[in-house]
């Protein structure tokens, strides 16, 4: 899977405005334990960014900070240039951020259709929602077949598609993905990454947290590597792939597993 398989127009809009999301020297504490140390990170419109790092490196805390679940004790979080300091999670969501959570977190006892409706919870444009739903069904035909089935009856791969479709139905400008490859078979992981690439090529910026570094870097524009709460490497995907420290710590042997 290479980067330019899918016709790609996103670079026209790249870097032309202020970042969609920007973290500036953010410190995060859980109680008295500091988990993020002066993190700075930015995602521009249309970019596909990956956030790499091992367990407890602060990847999930970074996503929680963007979502307004964790509030920085120092530093700022800017969403479209606006400080999110006082915003609740749902306010952040209403400003165009959407998430495919770790372990998918679909609503198990709601139908596929109802799950998708929940994704469009903040929207009122019925006709447009219907169209978007059709698009989701075109992207994931299996969901159309299963539309009246309960979420819990879906397979892991189908649930991942549902979580993705649900997240897209809010028409996000920034899609957060927490460990999209977790718990999926290798074939499904390939499929998953193709879909992420496709969604991104249609103009949605993606910030993806991933353990599978080589896989993530193969489709990303840029990447950040976190280690015990600090950004230790950042750069273009090509730079990261060729970075000796990356090679050793995260891409070792080239099989892509940490």
């Amino acid at each position, binding site marked *: 899977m290479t980067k330019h398989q899918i016709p790609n127009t996103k670079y026209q809009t790249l870097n032309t405005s202020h970042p969609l999301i920007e973290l500036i020297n953010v410190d995060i504490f859980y109680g008295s334990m500091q988990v993020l140390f002066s993190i700075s990170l930015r995602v521009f419109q249309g970019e596909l960014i990956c956030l790499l790092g091992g367990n407890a490196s602060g990847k999930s805390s970074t996503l929680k900070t963007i979502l307004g679940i964790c509030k920085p004790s120092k530093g700022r979080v800017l969403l479209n240039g606006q400080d999110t300091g006082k915003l609740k999670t749902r306010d952040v969501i209403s400003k165009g951020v959407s998430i495919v959570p770790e372990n998918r*977190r679909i*609503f198990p006892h709601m139908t596929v259709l*109802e799950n998708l409706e929940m994704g469009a*919870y*903040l929207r009122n444009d019925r006709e447009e929602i219907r169209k978007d739903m059709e698009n989701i069904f075109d992207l994931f035909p299996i969901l159309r077949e299963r539309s009246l089935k309960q979420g819990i009856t879906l397979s892991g791969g189908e649930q991942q598609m549902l979580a993705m479709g649900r997240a897209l139905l809010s028409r996000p400008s920034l899609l957060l993905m927490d460990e999209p490859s977790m718990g999926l078979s290798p074939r499904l992981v390939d499929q998953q990454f193709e879909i992420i690439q496709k969604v991104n090529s249609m103009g949605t910026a993606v910030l993806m947290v991933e353990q599978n570094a080589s896989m993530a870097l193969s489709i990303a524009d840029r990447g950040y590597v976190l280690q015990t709460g600090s950004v230790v490497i950042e750069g273009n995907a090509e730079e990261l792939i060729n970075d000796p420290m990356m090679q050793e710590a995260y891409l070792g042997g080239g099989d892509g597993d940490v």
Partner: protein
Amino acid sequence: MDIILQELPQQLVNGLTLGGIYALIAIGYSMVYGVLSMLNFAHGEVYMIGGFTGWWVLHYFSTQNVPFMHASLVITVTILVVMLCCGMLGILIERVAYRPLRGAPRMNLLLSALGVSIFLQNLVLTLQGAKVKVFHISHLIPESVRTFEIGGVVFSFMRLLVIAISFGMMLILSYVIKQTRAGKAMRATAQDIEAAEFMGIDVDRIVMLVFFVGSALGGAAGILVSLLFTQVDYYVGFQAGLKGFTAAVLGGIGNIKGAMLGGILLGLTEALAVSVFPSAYKDVVAFTILIIVLIFRPWGLVGEKLPEKV
């Protein structure tokens, strides 16, 4: 055996009356458990306050020279006012006693709920006294329609009214939960509160709504029973709360359909038990069922087996 069969239609009506009431109470337990994983032991007191509020509304109608209203309108207005007041009370309880404890160990919430229960009981005792409050509603329902006979079986009008109202409310609630935006948001919140927040759902508002609806239905049960037995006192909430809780567990706590089913089944079982055993054993039957369910099927009849939420 003959006597039992002869009484069967009547016991069925009695069972459905009780069942409808238990179901209304159980729904409140289950809805709250669904979103907060807590047992709201103050729920029985909301039921009791529903009875008292109803008494005062009817008292107002009969003493304040309100322009003449048809009896059905008086009863409708009374029930609606009671539901509104109890719904607001539910919201208040959540805001004052539970929300500050969100995220605290569940034992703290449980203790807080017991505290609210004791507080409300004693508040009503202080304000209203320990004497039974009697409903003087003979003028509302004339003697001639209070009972009627079909095929040799005598039916009580009030009981049929209670059945109609409680089952009607359950139908409306089922529709709201299944079809409306707020109902879907409630289900989503109950299934995964964090994921619901990721959808942009204001979960605090949903929790408020859950307390409002659950308490309004509990209050409605309180006024319906008070109308049926034409009395209420400050202590009725305890017993009713236990029965509602039993019904909720029987159906599968957290599951609204289960609460309805559990309530109806519990009511029917009690009524049929009364036709076999002395009526003093009614509660023995109810709580025996609770114990058996807890031992063999703790997730209830329609609830599902779930690992303990972390």
